[in-house]
């Protein structure tokens, strides 16, 4: 059914697109929809284009895994719209015709400005494009059972069809269609979460499989001498101990034991057996376990299979030490993958995690249907304990690459305040400089989100699709209302996914669709389909912006002779195809990064490259063309360079993140002020030489 709904959604998008593509023949029609879009439609299209897969899947996933820190993205993403509305929207519309470089260039008429602005649109669009493409791949992999790269290729192809075929009009209506659907279904899912309420039994049907029962992870007694000597498991042998150390104090923060023990198996005839592995019935051949620790043993007349798995040591409230069952996935040095001690297969996969293990006393085991504010207050309660999914990866003594997944018992009051993803408080033994850098990283991100929105190219081009400055303002207000409402929904979808145990340990991006699945396959199919159209809508806008930048800004200046309108439209269409293909390639290369995180970078580049230029041309009379060009180029170069030198990229290159030359991941706090300073200084230096009359102020 999911496949069917998927196809229906894609078909609907293509119908919307082809129905509106007739008007794309002329320059005005192709690039700015003839200024004919109604402000209400434009407002919803703003929402549909802006609310990307990062907002939908990324933020829900971050809230589900890290609590309140994910919501910080929602807040920053929305706050940026204030700048867009109050400062950018109307002047942008009044001063420009096709692209934002028109507005920058209005008083100067210098090709250099158009070139720099066009370049910045291209760079930011590509940065923003990558996470959208990654999100598309992440979606189709589990949904349609096809590889990640197919999702990227499908999205890329459909978007190329939309943009190259229908230009801005089709893009607008596709975004409008998607914005409406997103709000509607995020609302439906939020209501579903509230009606179900929160319970501690985790009885939601995992993955929509009726046969898969809720699983209680075991918690067994451990006997200690100077070391662990006994475990209350049948036939237990302690194989290995692994401890994670605090980087600063050297104290052990997490202790894991690899334990070989017996679990009951049932002979199924013909040398095959079945065993219950974490609630899943796994079938295997008696001989298949040779070499991976799987052996059939008889004890007291019963059949057992010997299995090796990882247990986590935890001190209980009464001081006793106990071992808690975990999930794990390990890649054997000679090839082959084990999940929870058995070979990975379609019937033996990691289970979803998450849940609420304790509610405030007055609720008992379940809150029942609950109001929206009450739900958030229950989550933030000191007496609520959520099962926050965690993972740790290391290489075991036998050379296996092991990732252990476990649930930390996190108090609700900690989960619902900042700090779990962005370490803001000083940890014991942490050098003061680390604390400072962590805080700077956080401020840097929040600054980029606030300053970046109004400088995003696919947002800026929307101002030119409406007939007047008034309409530009009104549509921005519609956008703020719609987007604000959506971000409030993300909070419920995120905590809902956690509360309903809908967390896929290998990708946080699947939290919202899996939450929907706990309410049934229909909702799951709808949400997944909408997530897919969300990618289409955002990517269309980005490619449209890139297409306009190249055809209107770059080409018009690089080609000496006058470019005909037909040639401009043709160039726009060709650029759409090329950028689409580049996006596909990058989307495949960056597949396993959280999409919100990548989007944070795109905002930083946009804010550094475009915002200073926009603000100065509007509000500072002494701004010179040289200043604008220098600021845009320095903004792009500094933010991209800082990202390339950041610890996260160091991990991507396979290097130790601690050795990265740039100590923080988020470049905004350096590159945004730098770009402002460059604009100011260069303008002052060039103001006397500039023969151009003083620019018209925004007044």
């Amino acid at each position, binding site marked *: 059914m999911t496949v069917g709904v998927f196809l229906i959604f894609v078909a609907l998008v293509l119908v919307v697109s082809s129905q509106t593509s007739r008007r794309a023949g002329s320059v005005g029609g192709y690039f700015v929809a003839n200024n004919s879009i109604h402000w209400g439609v434009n407002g919803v299209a703003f929402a549909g284009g802006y609310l990307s897969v990062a907002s939908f899947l990324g933020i829900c996933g971050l809230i589900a895994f890290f609590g309140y820190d994910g919501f910080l993205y929602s*807040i920053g993403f929305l706050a940026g719209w204030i700048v867009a509305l109050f400062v950018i929207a109307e*002047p942008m519309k009044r001063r420009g015709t096709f692209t934002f470089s028109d507005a920058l260039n209005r008083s100067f008429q210098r090709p250099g400005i158009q070139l720099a602005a066009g370049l910045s649109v291209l760079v930011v669009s590509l940065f923003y494009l990558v996470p959208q493409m990654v999100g598309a791949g992440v979606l189709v992999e589990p949904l349609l059972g096809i590889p990640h790269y197919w999702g990227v290729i499908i999205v890329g192809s459909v978007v190329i069809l939309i943009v190259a075929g229908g230009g801005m009009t089709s893009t607008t209506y596709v975004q409008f269609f998607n914005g409406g659907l997103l709000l509607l279904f995020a609302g439906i899912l939020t209501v579903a979460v509230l009606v179900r309420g929160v319970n501690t039994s985790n009885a939601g049907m995992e993955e929509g499989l009726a046969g898969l029962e809720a699983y209680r992870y075991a918690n067994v007694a451990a006997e200690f001498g100077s070391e662990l000597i006994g475990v209350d498991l049948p036939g237990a042998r302690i194989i290995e101990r692994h401890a994670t150390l605090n980087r600063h104090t050297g104290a052990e923060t997490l202790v894991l034991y690899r334990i070989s023990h017996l679990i009951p198996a049932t002979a199924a005839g013909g040398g095959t057996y079945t065993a219950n592995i974490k609630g899943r019935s796994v079938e295997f051949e008696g001989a298949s376990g040779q070499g991976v620790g799987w052996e059939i043993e008889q004890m007291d007349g019963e059949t057992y299979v010997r299995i090796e798995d990882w247990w986590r040591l935890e001190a209980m409230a009464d001081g006793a030490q106990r071992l808690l069952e975990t999930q794990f996935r390990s890649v054997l040095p000679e090839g082959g993958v084990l999940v929870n001690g058995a070979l990975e297969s379609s019937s033996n996969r990691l289970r979803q995690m998450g849940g609420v293990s304790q509610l405030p006393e007055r609720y008992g085991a379940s809150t029942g249907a609950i109001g929206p504010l009450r739900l958030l207050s229950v989550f933030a309660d000191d007496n609520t304990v959520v099962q926050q999914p965690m993972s740790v990866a290391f290489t075991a003594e036998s050379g296996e690459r092991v990732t252990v997944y476990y649930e930390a018992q996190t108090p609700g009051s900690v989960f619902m305040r900042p700090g779990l993803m962005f370490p803001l408080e000083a940890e014991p033994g942490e050098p003061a400089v680390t604390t400072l850098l962590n805080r700077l990283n956080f401020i840097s991100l929040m600054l980029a989100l606030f300053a970046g929105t109004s400088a995003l190219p696919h947002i800026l081009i929307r101002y030119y699709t409406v007939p007047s400055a008034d309409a530009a303002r009104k549509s921005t207000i519609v956008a703020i209302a719609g987007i604000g409402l959506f971000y409030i929904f993300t909070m419920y979808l995120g905590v809902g996914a956690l509360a309903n145990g809908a967390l896929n340990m290998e990708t946080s991006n699947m939290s919202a669709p899996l939450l929907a699945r706990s309410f049934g396959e229909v909702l799951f199919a709808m949400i997944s389909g909408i997530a897919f159209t969300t990618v289409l809508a955002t990517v269309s806008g980005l490619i449209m912006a890139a297409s306009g930048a190249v055809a209107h800004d770059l080409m018009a200046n690089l080609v000496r002779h006058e470019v005909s309108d037909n040639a401009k439209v043709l160039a726009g269409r060709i650029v759409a195809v090329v950028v689409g293909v580049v996006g596909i390639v990058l989307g495949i290369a960056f597949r396993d990064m959280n999409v919100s995180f990548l989007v944070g970078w795109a905002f930083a580049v946009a804010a550094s490259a475009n915002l200073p230029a926009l603000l100065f041309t509007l509000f500072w009379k002494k701004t010179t063309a040289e200043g604008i060009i220098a600021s845009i180029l320095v903004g792009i170069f500094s933010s991209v360079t800082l990202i390339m030198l950041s610890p996260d990229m160091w991990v991507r290159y396979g290097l130790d993140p601690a050795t990265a030359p740039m100590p923080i991941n988020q470049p905004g706090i350096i590159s945004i002020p730098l770009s402002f300073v460059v604009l100011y200084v260069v303008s002052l230096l060039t103001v006397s030489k500039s023969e151009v009359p003083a620019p018209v102020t925004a007044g």
Partner: protein
Amino acid sequence: MAQNVPTTDDALERRKSAIGIQMTILYSIVYAGFVALSVFQPTWMGARAVLGLNVAVAYGLGLIVIAVLFALVYNYLCRVPPAGAASRTSSASGPKAGQQES
């Protein structure tokens, strides 16, 4: 280019721009307060505030709700022309793109 825009529109535009900047600054202060609190006193963010919500959630939701309210207030202020100015807004002055098909 500026010459063919009526001066009354210029006045209205200046006024809107001034209101816009003031409201942006006001909102930035509220937003900066939120970031500062998160960075320097994260534990305060867990304290109870209003309606059973903690400070973090109340402040965060508040930033979203305030943004919408600000937007509506701004729109209202933009609709009312200042005394002495013509009631026309600048809607006619937006440059039109390309060929119109209508």
